[in-house]
């Protein structure tokens, strides 16, 4: 890993040595009605293990596509995406992905939904269930193991989706506007929860968001995107857990907003 991004500000001794990403000269386009539409043009980014990276940008700037490429749901036209210096080829349990919609299976209980993510694990069934129970505690869903998704609020369903994504213990957790569909109050609460979970898990997290305050509250590094490219990479100097009113965040916010308006 190289050093274009600072090591994260929390103490790094217990941080995992895996989960570093290198994105090199990635191009991606889509065919829309026979015309080639370029979504990412020569995007390069290096992310150190255990870092929280926020990607902000306007709709259609390619930030979700970048996340889907890292997840292996799409394939880049050219360039490389390396996880621990190994090229990404398709989805893998070393990378988790949380979508804007929870995508729980409605016919399975919360517990069964999270267990599904452990399908490929060799653990005994009782161990799996114990792990699911502790994950549900981590995301604040104690007592809801047997609930069906339709019985949960939007925020609770998203917590269950977070538990499912964490279950296979991914080295990298990708979050695609994970709180975008929630009301403002639930959103603030879950931002704090995400920070707490990240501090507990210490895996690499990459979150795409529209919300500049959310990006600044959670990210060590903010990647500002303009259509098709990375406009700037900013480092957030303050430590975690973070104070939303930290005066150091204000100039960063102004800079990000001016970049977004320019794009």
């Amino acid at each position, binding site marked *: 890993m190289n050093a274009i991004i600072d090591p994260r500000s929390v103490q790094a001794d217990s941080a995992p040595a895996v989960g570093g990403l290198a994105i090199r000269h990635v191009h991606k386009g889509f065919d829309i009605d026979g015309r080639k539409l370029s979504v990412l043009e020569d995007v390069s980014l290096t992310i150190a293990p255990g870092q929280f990276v926020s990607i902000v940008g306007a709709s259609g700037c390619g930030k979700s596509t970048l996340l889907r490429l890292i*997840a292996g*749901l799409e394939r880049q036209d050219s360039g490389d995406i390396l996880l621990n210096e190994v090229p990404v080829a*398709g*989805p*893998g*349990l070393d*990378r*988790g*992905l949380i*979508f804007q*919609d929870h*995508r729980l*299976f*409605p*016919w*399975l209980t919360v517990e069964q939904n999270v267990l*599904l*993510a452990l*399908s*490929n694990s060799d653990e005994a069934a009782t161990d799996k269930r114990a792990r699911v129970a502790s994950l549900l505690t981590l995301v604040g869903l104690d007592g809801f193991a047997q609930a*069906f998704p*339709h*019985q949960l609020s939007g925020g609770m369903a998203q917590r269950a989706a977070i538990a499912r994504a964490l279950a*296979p213990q991914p080295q990298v957790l990708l979050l695609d506007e994970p709180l975008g569909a929630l009301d403002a109050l639930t959103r603030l609460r879950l931002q704090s929860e995400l920070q707490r979970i990240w501090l507990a898990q210490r895996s690499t997290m990459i979150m795409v968001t529209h919300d500049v305050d959310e990006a600044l509250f959670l990210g060590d590094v903010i990647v500002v995107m303009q259509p098709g490219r990375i406009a700037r990479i900013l480092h957030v100097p303050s430590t975690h857990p973070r104070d939303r009113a930290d005066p150091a965040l204000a100039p960063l916010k102004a800079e990000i907003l001016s970049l977004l308006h320019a794009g």
Partner: protein
Amino acid sequence: MRSTLQQRLLPLLVPGLILATWFAVTSGDDFTAQVLVPPAAVLDSFNELLASGELADHLRASLSRLLLGFGIGSGLGLGFGILLARSALVNAFAGPFFQAVRQVPSIAFLPMLILLLGVDEGFKLAIVAKAAFFPVALATHDAVKGISKGWLEVAAIYRLSPLRVLFRLILPATVPPVLTGLRLGLTRAWIVLVAAELMAAENGIGQMMEMGRQMFRIDTVMVGVALTGLIGFALDQGVRLAERRLVRWKAV
């Protein structure tokens, strides 16, 4: 307690009222018993048909036709529905034709089918199969189309095996809407079968009614009408019960 008792009795109110009116009207001299038979005569006729074994024969004939025709029609409907949803080619050449033929009532095909297949079992099975085919094919098509791409991505991310995808995703997502299609197909097949038996049959509940009409035995006709309704109702409720058991996860 009281409200559940009320809910149980409420559905019996309308049939009860009709029965009471029927009793009242037939106990006077305003109608001759040949035109509007009294309820007691219908019940006698039912008991007679039951005791002679005649009714059981008719029911056996009708229900075995239903089972066979529905089995063929719904099986083909399932296969065709999946093809229509999964293959752009099949959809391109069969889609519009399917949608157009679907609009024609099954009974409209009866004269043609009788000419083609004669008045034996063939045309009855064909019409029953046709009646079952369309609702099942349509429901299957919609069910397969309804499997969300988002869920398939979740399956890809957690590297679920094809077998797990089938049992944890494809079947749970498609079985409830397909069951609804099967229920519609089954009740339509029943209606069409009785109509076909009224036109041409050697036995069956429809033929029993037609013979009753020809011999001016309105009591026999009414036994047939009541049984047709009850059997259709039972088929519908039976599949509904299966639906409710299989789809307990759904918000009601």
